Structures are given as C-alpha cells and as structure tokens.
C-alpha cells in the first residue's frame, strides 16, 4: 500500500484535473464571451443527451448545442418551434477553438417565445 500510494495519488490527480476544471460546456465553449447570431434554422437533431441544430447566418452556418430532451420539454423548446426554416436569434458561448459553434444561452424564435435554456456555461 505505501509503495502504491504515490503513483496512485499522482494518477488520480492527473485524471481528476480536467474533470474538476471543466464541464463539457466550459471545456468546449468559452464561458467568458457570448455571441449573438440571427438566422434561419437549417437542421435539427432533436436527441438525447443534447439537442443540436444549425443556424444559417449569412455565409456562416453555426452549430448550436443545447440541453437534453427533458430539459427542452420543461423549458418549452418543442420540435414544432425548433424546425427547419424557423427564424431565430441565438445567444451563446462560442467554441474555444474559434469554429462556428456555440453552447446555447438564450433562443428567441421569430413569432414565438424567447427561451433561456441555460444560465451559465459551467
């Protein structure tokens, strides 16, 4: 046990570090910045564990990640609202790698509700 303890602790510390420092949102998206995009919904993947959809804004197609199906249901984001061709304004945390991806904070649907899907990019 004493011989095993130091490598064990080192291994656990190494493997735990990224887990303690990040949640999937904060690993992938920059919590210190937000972007706001208006455009047209082009493809929707209404699935667990996270819903993804694209927003065509000018020449850029943004890939937007949001919550689980049950969370979407609780917040009122239905498939009838989030459909191809829907005009939306999305606010979210942009991908750290600079690609056109965001973790969704708020979605405002043209002619529909404005829904806050997540408060922080924790």
């Amino acid at each position, binding site marked *: 046990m004493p011989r095993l303890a130091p490598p064990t602790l080192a291994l656990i510390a190494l493997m735990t570090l990224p887990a303690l420092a990040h949640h999937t949102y904060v690993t992938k998206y920059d919590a210190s910045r937000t972007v706001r995009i208006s455009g047209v919904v082009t493809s929707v993947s209404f699935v667990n564990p996270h819903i993804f959809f694209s927003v065509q804004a000018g020449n850029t197609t943004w890939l937007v990640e949001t919550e689980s*199906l049950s969370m979407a249901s609780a917040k009122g984001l239905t498939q009838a609202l989030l459909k191809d061709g829907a005009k939306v304004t999305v606010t979210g945390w942009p991908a750290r790698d600079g690609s056109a991806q965001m973790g969704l904070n708020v979605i405002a649907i043209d002619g529909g509700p404005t829904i806050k899907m997540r408060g922080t990019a924790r």
Partner: protein
Amino acid sequence: MGLIPDDLWENLAASPLAASIRASIWIYPFLETAHVIGLALVVGSIVSFDLRVLGLNRDLSVRRLSRHLLPWVWTGFFINASTGVLLFVSDAAEFAANRALQVKLLLILAAGLNAALFQGRLIRSVETWDTRERAPAGARASAALSITLWLAIVVAGRTIAYIE
C-alpha cells in the same frame, strides 16, 4: 483498430436501436441512472472487500464477506455492462473515438485480470488468514491495486463527458 471496419461505429450509431435511444425522453436518463446504481454496487462492494483484505476489521471473516459481496459485484457488473453497451451504441462513433472511454475499458480489463489473479490464486490460502491474521503481502498488494484501478475507472468514466 485495424481489424474493425471503418464504418462499423457509424453504422451502429445509425441503427434503429441507437436512433430510438437518442429520440426517447426517458431511455437515455434511465440508462445513465441505472449505470450509476450498477457502479455503486460494483465499486462499493469491491472497495469494501479490498479494505478488509488490507487489514481493516480483521474480526470479519474474509470468506463470509466475500460470499456476501461477490453476488452484488456481479449484479452491478451485469447492469453496467448492459447499460454501458446501450449508451455506447446510441452514439457509437463518438464513443469509440473517446480517449477516456478507451482508457476506462483498458482499466476494467486490468481490474478483471487482477481480480482473476486474486480469486484464482491469492485467495487459496485464505484459511490461514480468514480472521484476525494479516493477509499475505500478495493479497494486500492486489487489494490496493484493485481499489486504485476501480477509483481510476470511475474517474475515466466521468471524464468521457468532458472530452471529445
């Protein structure tokens, strides 16, 4: 993974089973919840047993404790193997490429080999250390390794959700 066809994981993720797991409100959270319950059974039972082998509460019979805990280890392992496979299938291409999952599966293999060594060889002399007597160094080393591996497996498992 040269023996595995390139599109195997994509095809698996595109299967009706995978699609229905992703499309259901309940299946995914059910699988995740059952996976945590199975984890509690496996790791809780194994660590409890290993701590006894390491020398805690030596008045408890190692053989009786083993008889009590081992069925729960296997119950939990069955729950987690089946829920784990279904969670994997739901997004097979992503999971297959996930480094944390690859590490986790290797660690489970190592823990399995260590357990086989313990159950196949090290426990044979248990009569002489069933109660009160200190377990031999080999058995204690195996128990310490077991705790280490299972904690690392939990960490690797949780890390799957935090990396790509």
